[in-house]
Every structure is written in C-alpha cells, then in structure tokens.
C-alpha cells in the first residue's frame, strides 16, 4: 500500500498529464462522431455573450452587403409574386385546409467558421425561440447546414462544410439523388456522392435539396456542377458542386422547422418495424 502511494506521489505530474490528456482525447473522439458533441459546444451563456458583443460591432461593417442581399431577395420574391400563375388567384382556400408545412425563424450568425475540417456555426436563437435539433438552416441563396445543439438562447449549426455532414440532394433537371459531403479542401465547393451513372450530369447544371430528409423542403438551391468524375467502380458519379452561398460571409440566416417532421418520422419508424 505504501508503495502504491509512493508511486502515485512520485509520478503525480505524469499521472495528472495522462488523466487530462485522456479526457481531452475522449472529447475529441466524441466530437468526431456525428451529432454527439454534447458537452463542449459554443451554444452556451459564456461563448454566446462574447460572440454577441463581437457580432454587434461586426454587423456595421457588413451593412452594405446585407442590404444588397436583401434587395436581391426582394426582387426575386417580387418576380415570383407578379409572375404567379393567374389561375391560383381564384382558388378558394379554406383556412382549415391550409396547413403550413414550414415555420421560418430569422437568426444572426454569431460565429462562422470555414477553415477547419469540421466547421460549426453559432446562431443567436435557441430553445427559447423553440429551435430544436435537426432544423434546417438556409440563406436566400442556398443551404447552410443543420441545427446540432441548442441552449436557451443559442444554437450551433453543423455546417455543410463539415466532414460529418451528409445531406440529401438531387439534380434539378432529373430526380437522381445523391448525398452531399465535404472533402475539407475548399470552402466554395462541396461534393455530391453516389449519383447513379444513368443521371444526365452536365457541367453548369443546378443541384438542389432532395426533400427526402424531412429537414429541408424540396428544391432549395445548393450550387452548380463545376466538374464530375466516375467512381473507381464506375457505377456512380462524384460531382464537384460550386456553392451558391459564400460560406465565408454569412450574416443573417433562416431556420426552417418542418411542422410535419414528427408525423413523417413516426410513419417511417412504424413501417420499419
């Protein structure tokens, strides 16, 4: 017993180092497994406060670009409004039949990151604004990511620039689907994997969300095809997608809540059993 104590006292530095290092390593490994970076994330009071102060200063420098983005989006929405199919004018809609599918919340990006292999954003909306895990995050240009963790007033977003992220996407001109991943090289390009070799892939075509995942609605823009190649096996294409969004410059984002998600998940679960 005496010897054990002596051993511990003699090697106390090494033992403490070992303990701390293994805690850090455990947290690292945990953070590399999808969706479970529960303990150490920037959705909390301390980091939110610091990033909030930074953001309130930072916003002033981006006012002009933000205005441009808003004006552009307004133009786009107005075009949609005026070019609406006239027959929808006269459709009688009983309010009890119109059920909204998506609820939209506006949020500010408090922390953006794009230089790491696993990028995570922090937003200034959280549980108090009824934001939960697995809500989609988009801008007026295209998708940004999926909500990962939430605290009372803040939320973290698993960016599409994250090696853990896999988002369902499809070609706009056909219905061939694939999953969107990132190879951690360029923040302007993501990869669309596992696209069937029968798909009519052409450089310059648009990639959009597939709507299979019940997180994003169908048809939100992602980017255009900049190049593509067949896999080694030759069965599938891997497509390089140039993003519509400039992920290095994000100011305001929209959080989408699919109000039917619970029903869809329940249905899928019950048919899996």
């Amino acid at each position, binding site marked *: 017993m005496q010897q054990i104590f002596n051993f511990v006292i003699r090697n*106390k*530095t*090494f033992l*403490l*180092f070992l303990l*701390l*290092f293994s*805690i*850090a*390593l*455990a*947290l*690292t*490994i*945990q*953070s*590399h497994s999808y969706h479970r*970076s529960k303990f*150490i*994330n*920037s959705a*909390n009071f*301390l*980091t939110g406060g*610091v*990033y909030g102060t*930074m953001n309130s200063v930072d916003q002033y420098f981006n006012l002009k670009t933000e205005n441009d983005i808003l004006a552009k989006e307004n133009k786009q929405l107005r075009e949609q409004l005026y070019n609406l199919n006239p027959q929808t004018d006269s459709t009688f809609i009983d309010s009890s039949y119109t059920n909204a599918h998506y609820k939209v919340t506006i949020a500010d990006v408090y*922390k953006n*990151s*794009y*230089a*790491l*292999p*696993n990028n*995570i954003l*922090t937003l200034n909306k959280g549980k108090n604004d009824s934001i939960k895990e697995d809500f989609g995050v988009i801008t007026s240009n295209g998708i940004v990511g999926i909500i990962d963790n939430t605290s009372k007033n803040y939320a*973290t977003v698993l960016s599409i620039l994250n090696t853990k992220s896999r988002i369902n996407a499809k070609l706009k001109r056909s219905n061939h689907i694939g999953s969107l991943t990132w190879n*951690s090289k*360029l*923040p302007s390009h993501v990869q669309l994997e596992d696209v069937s070799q029968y798909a009519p892939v052409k450089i310059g075509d648009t990639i959009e969300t597939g709507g299979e995942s019940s997180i994003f609605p169908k048809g939100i823009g992602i980017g255009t095809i900049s190049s593509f190649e067949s896999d080694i096996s030759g069965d599938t294409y891997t497509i390089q997608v140039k993003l519509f969004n400039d992920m*290095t410059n994000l100011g305001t984002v929209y959080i989408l809540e699919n109000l039917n998600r619970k029903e869809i998940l329940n249905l899928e679960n019950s048919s899996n059993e």
Partner: protein
Amino acid sequence: MNNVLGINIIRFIALLLLQVVICNQINLFGFINPYIYIIYIFLFPIREERLVLLLSSFILGMLVDLFSDSGGVHAAAAVSLAYVRPILLKSSFGMLYEHQSIKFTTTDIGNLITYLTLGTIIHHLILFSLEIFNISNILLTLKKTLFSSIFTILLSVLIIILFSPNKK
C-alpha cells in the same frame, strides 16, 4: 508572490480573449490561424508547481475548444505542451534552466526563439493531427502545422518582446 499570480491570471484571460476574438477569425489564405494562447504556457513561471501549469493549460485549452467547437483538440495539445515544457527548457536554455534562473524577458533572443519554435511545432502537430484525425490526410496536417507554426512563432516573439517590462 501575489503579483505573479495576478499577472498570470491577467495573461490567461487576455490571451484567451485575443485568441477567440481576433486570432480565430484571421483565416489567412483560407486556413492559417495563429494560436497565440500558448504564450501563457511558455511564460508560466518556472519555479511554480508543475501540476498548476498542467491544470491551467488544460482549462485554457478547453475554453478555446468551447469557443471554436472543436471537441478537445486544443486541450490535448496544450496539456502535452505543458508536460514537455521542462524538456524544451533544458534543451534550449541549458545551464540557465538547471540553476532555475531564467527570466524570459532578459534571456538571449536566440534561445527564446529556439524554445518557442520547438514548443509551437509540438503543440501544432498534436493540434492538427487530432483536428483532422485522418492518417490519409497527413500532408494536409503537415502543411497546416508548418504554416500556422510560422505565423504563431512570429506573433509570439513580437508579443513577448512588446510586453517585456524592461526597457533597454
């Protein structure tokens, strides 16, 4: 004694804020960020208890992790640097360290740079290996280590010289 404690606490907080508010946002050429918070570990007083250094570097690393959503990579790298610090000190300062009489602000600048370079490379290598966490991307790891190290060393030397109390 109290003075030393105060200086270190201020240094801890100042470097942490500097790191998360400014240095994490630089992204030079898209991926190069300096990690200057390790100056705290470099300049920790030599005569103080090593356990305190280990614990405080762990907390510092953890806080940086908290701000940058990176799991525990900074904590792991910082703790390792704190642990190997005596070896670095011995190899870069030699006899001075044996006599426990190093004053970082008055030593030869060459020795100081050796010390910072060795420490920074060890820290960054561990940091980026854990962050990328993929053997097949080893070239990316080395590239990031190299460029970020240069940036960090330059900034660290500048900061240490700028804030050294003795005016010559």
